[in-house]
């Protein structure tokens, strides 16, 4: 496994290992067979594991998640692929009202070990409904776990951990990073729901996940040239959030800035800002700030750079935080 892999390949290898290690694991989705998925994440898997385990489905998102629930009741461990973020809404009832609640409704008698893989987020110049960030909808729903890796190592190991989980996991793949390469180690290093400090610093904490981690790392690098040492925390898990790690960091730096692509209003940043304010109030030198998308539909791709947080918008927020 060791070596430089793209996130896409790291995910592909994770699916392969999961199919190898548990005969009850099955993959389902549109075009995941011969095509290998529109992003080729399932490339070659149907050839090696057969169309009984890597199942091309009808073009029906509710059907994909709903039948996965039935398969889970029969003892299977389905991993379903939603082709693009904006296509998951037809499956919304099956995910938030059926999948998320089944374990509780059965008073614990049944488990729902289903992983819902969704390529999410913008930045690839796509057309409408191909660039959305819907993590807050899912993180808001008890019963679901929501995670998003930012690099190849985490992409590989977090997907394997998600598939092994007996709870339903919404697995958000940062599609604009699919082709970024990185080292994939032999060990997951962290439990699925732990955050990680990816860059230590002392002046402010940048909190991000998925595609925005790289932007924040670049911002921290740029800030260092101005003599500012920014800490970057990769949340990795959006439900549950590893608040202990985030809190500890913000208490040390006294400043926190949450960065995500999703609209700021009622986004994950709102929850983080509220909680950090409650818990770190006497340590804060500035209010927790948020950088994210606007309260508008995801825009046409020619102006998506305006919508998406970039290095300059992050650094502007750093300036504001440090000015308090």
């Amino acid at each position: 496994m060791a070596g430089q892999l793209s996130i896409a390949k790291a995910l592909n290898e994770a699916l392969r290992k999961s199919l190898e290690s548990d005969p009850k694991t099955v993959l389902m989705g549109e075009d995941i067979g011969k095509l290998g998925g529109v992003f080729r994440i399932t490339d070659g898997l149907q050839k090696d594991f057969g169309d009984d385990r890597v199942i091309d489905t009808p073009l029906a998102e509710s059907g994909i998640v709903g039948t996965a629930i039935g398969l889970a009741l029969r003892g299977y461990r389905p991993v379903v692929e939603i082709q693009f973020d904006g296509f998951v809404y037809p499956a919304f009832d099956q995910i938030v009202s059926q999948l998320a609640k089944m374990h509780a409704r059965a008073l614990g008698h049944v488990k729902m070990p289903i992983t819902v893989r969704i390529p999410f987020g913008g930045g690839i110049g796509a057309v409408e409904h191909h660039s959305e960030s819907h993590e807050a909808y899912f993180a808001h729903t008890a019963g679901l776990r929501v995670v998003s890796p930012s690099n190849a190592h985490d992409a590989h190991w977090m997907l394997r951990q998600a598939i092994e989980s007996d709870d339903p996991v919404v697995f958000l793949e940062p599609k604009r990073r699919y082709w970024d390469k990185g080292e994939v180690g032999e060990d997951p290093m962290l439990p699925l729901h732990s955050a990680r400090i990816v860059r230590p610093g002392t002046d402010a904490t940048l909190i991000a996940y998925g595609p925005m981690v790289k932007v924040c790392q670049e911002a921290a690098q740029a800030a260092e040239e101005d003599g500012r040492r920014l800490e970057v925390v990769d949340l990795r898990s959006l439900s549950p959030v590893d608040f202990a790690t985030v809190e500890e960091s913000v208490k040390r730096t006294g400043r926190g800035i949450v960065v995500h692509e999703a609209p700021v209003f009622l986004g994950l940043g709102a929850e983080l800002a509220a909680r950090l304010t409650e818990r770190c109030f006497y340590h804060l030198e500035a209010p927790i700030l948020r950088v994210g998308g606007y309260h508008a539909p995801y825009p046409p791709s020619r102006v998506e750079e305006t919508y998406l947080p970039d290095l300059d918008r992050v650094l502007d927020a750093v300036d504001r935080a440090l000015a308090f």
Partner: protein
Amino acid sequence: MTVKSTSRARKKAAPGVPDPARAGSTAEPELVQLLTPEGDRVEHPEFPLTVTPEELRSLYRDLVLVRRFDAEATSLQRQGELGLWASLLGQEAAQVGSGRAMRTGDYAFPTYREHGVAWCRDVDPLNLLGMFRGVNNGGWDPNEKNFHLYTIVIGAQTLHATGYAMGITKDGADDAVIAYFGDGASSQGDVNEAFTFASVYNSPVVFFCQNNQWAISEPTTVQTRIPLYRRASGFGFPGVRVDGNDVLAVLAVTRWALDHARTGQGPVLVEAFTYRMGAHTTSDDPTRYRQSEETESWKAKDPILRLKAHLEKEGLADEAFFTGIEAESEQLGLRVREGVRSMPDPDPTLIFDHAYSEPHPLVDEERAEYEAYAASFEGGEHH
């Protein structure tokens, strides 16, 4: 087996244009029937059925006890013991006939009205009342009796049933699944997606539609312009319309359909043509949307009376049998009444108990906060 009625209906209208006069709930083409409303046995060439007198008496017992359970629950709702009840009055034969057609390894996916199917699966009737009383949102282990939790969002369970059936195929087992839904649900995307998945994967699932003519206040004509069983042909599998008030016909047709499914021949749609005699739920008022003459006309087709007439005509049961069933029915009513009234409220920490299978720090944290809050009250408990 449905071709005859289909072609006949089409003769009256231009191809592809359904004749509204024959559409939906107003049309009754070729119901499979084995027992007339008067209690006479008739034969159907495609659905022969041999039943022993003992089986007939047993079916009668099921029908009566299920109706009694349902009536008791309705009363308990009126007395404030249940928050809501969805009565099956009038649909006993559709449920008992299909429920008794199942084998032990088969699996049922109900809506929220399948009390008679639950009875046939040997699920304790008191389990069904927990959700309506508000002590849980499901409450039983679906795998214990192969009877899934009630599903409230219309049609969602048909996909769960289909996925389960896909699993049966993968396992190489010869079990089958039955998915219950209503005429209103036939309009839902999930039901149509379930038809598609079941068809293309040739899954062993029987879609059992109880067409009780009304989706709350909307008649079947608002859902469809063709008889519902004919939907199946567009998805590539057979559809059959059965007299849903005839327990013998439902038994025969469902048994055939389940065998068809379990032997690798794919899904079947069974439309049980029946009638909801009561309200949609205890919150509903059917006098606002339907005529009493309609309800009266269906009384003449009552599933229990016709089987009783048959048993009496054929001398298959004596007075002592009927008296015995009545006594058993009283006992069931008493058990349900007392069971509901003594059903304990859950501990409030149930809220946190099964949100997740694995530990979840936010849930643990909020549980601890709640417990500390509750303990802060006098006596240590929050009332």
